């Protein structure tokens, strides 16, 4: 009986420590976006349907991250979902607290607008919560991601691309850069993104991928990881622009250019996903 409650206390304490880690990670990941002016106005002018879709997808990404790299070794998908809900709540509380301290969420702001503003920040903050619980709480043994198969690696690339792309996507600068770029430099940027992605996949090593997959040639690795990863990065970039309403009135060529520009950080995010998230 006493042993049992002592064990409970120990478990509670360990969980409280990991919560604090999660909060720290949420704040570290969220502050660049919380301190970005465009994110405030996007929070109250985003189309509600797109925001809802983003939140649901974001929860899915959080659950996936918790499953593959969660700090509390997730036993199964239910566990991962609970972790994701916890991380999302930490993200809400953390970014809400910062926005309130900064005087951006004020009583004059209607509560619906405030909810939109905080919820938009909660997904990247939640990714920070999941990542920090893993990074700070280094534990022995290999994380599940080291044993992950090809689909899981694609998922990690999407998560990494989403995170880095979202740090830039709300800003005016993406469209401005796209407007300034000439066609040839744009093609060059695509090449550079792809090259960096390919190099980083090798030098940093992707989830136990320091060497090429057995029996796979360089060409196949390039197609399966680098090219696939860049495609995902472009898709994530377009999705981010669409969510933020940056795509709405632009022409198709303009949209494609903005997607390529945003695809640069997204490709980097996909390449270093294992370090970031």
């Amino acid at each position: 009986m006493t042993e049992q409650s002592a064990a409970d206390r120990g478990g509670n304490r360990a969980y409280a420590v990991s919560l604090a880690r999660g909060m720290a990670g949420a704040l570290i990941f969220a502050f660049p976006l919380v301190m970005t002016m465009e994110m405030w106005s996007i929070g109250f002018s985003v189309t509600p349907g797109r925001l809802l879709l983003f939140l649901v997808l974001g929860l899915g990404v959080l659950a996936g991250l918790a499953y593959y790299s969660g700090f509390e070794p997730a036993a199964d998908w239910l566990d991962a979902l609970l972790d994701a809900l916890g991380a999302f709540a930490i993200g809400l509380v953390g970014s809400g607290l910062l926005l309130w301290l900064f005087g951006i969420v004020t009583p004059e702001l209607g509560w619906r607008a405030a909810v939109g503003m905080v919820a938009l920040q909660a997904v990247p903050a939640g990714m920070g919560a999941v990542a920090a619980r893993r990074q700070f709480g280094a534990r022995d043994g290999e994380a599940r991601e080291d044993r992950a198969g090809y689909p899981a690696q694609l998922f990690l690339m999407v998560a990494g691309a989403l995170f880095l792309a979202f740090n830039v996507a709300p800003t005016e600068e993406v469209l401005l850069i796209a407007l300034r770029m000439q066609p040839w430099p744009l093609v060059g940027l695509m090449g550079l993104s792809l090259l960096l992605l390919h190099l980083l996949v090798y030098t940093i090593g992707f989830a136990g991928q320091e060497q090429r997959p057995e029996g796979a040639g360089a060409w196949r690795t390039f197609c399966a990881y680098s090219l696939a990863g860049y495609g995902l990065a472009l898709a994530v970039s377009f999705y981010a622009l669409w969510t933020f309403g940056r795509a709405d009135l632009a022409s198709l060529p303009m949209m494609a250019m903005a997607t390529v520009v945003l695809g640069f950080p997204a490709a980097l995010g996909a390449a270093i996903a294992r370090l970031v998230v």
Partner: protein
Amino acid sequence: MSRKPLLEWLMAGFGATLTLGTLAVVASDISVSQGDPPPRLAIAAEAPQPDGQGSFLVRFTVTNAAPATAAQVTVEGVLSEGERVLETSRAVLDYVPRGSSARGGLWFRQDPAGRLTLRATGYAEP
């Protein structure tokens, strides 16, 4: 150990509540903002205050009741006597978010008490 600590269950419940609440609010927003509604602005002016430098300050609050955000809201105050316009002042508010309010002020050289009309003359869609 298969038993989860109590705190973890509490946090999971807390997280589920916050998450579902947020999703519910955002989902209810979808039907509210159907059909691309325009902003609906109401301006409430306070009594003019002499600012101690020979001018009068009229502070106002713009409230946006619609589920659509207005950016660059231009508020114009016209001080007139009968048909004759004595003075016009303008202020631009960066944002009046949906269901929210924003504050500003207009200066006039003469005491505008009783002769002032305030109205919003335009906005930009964010």
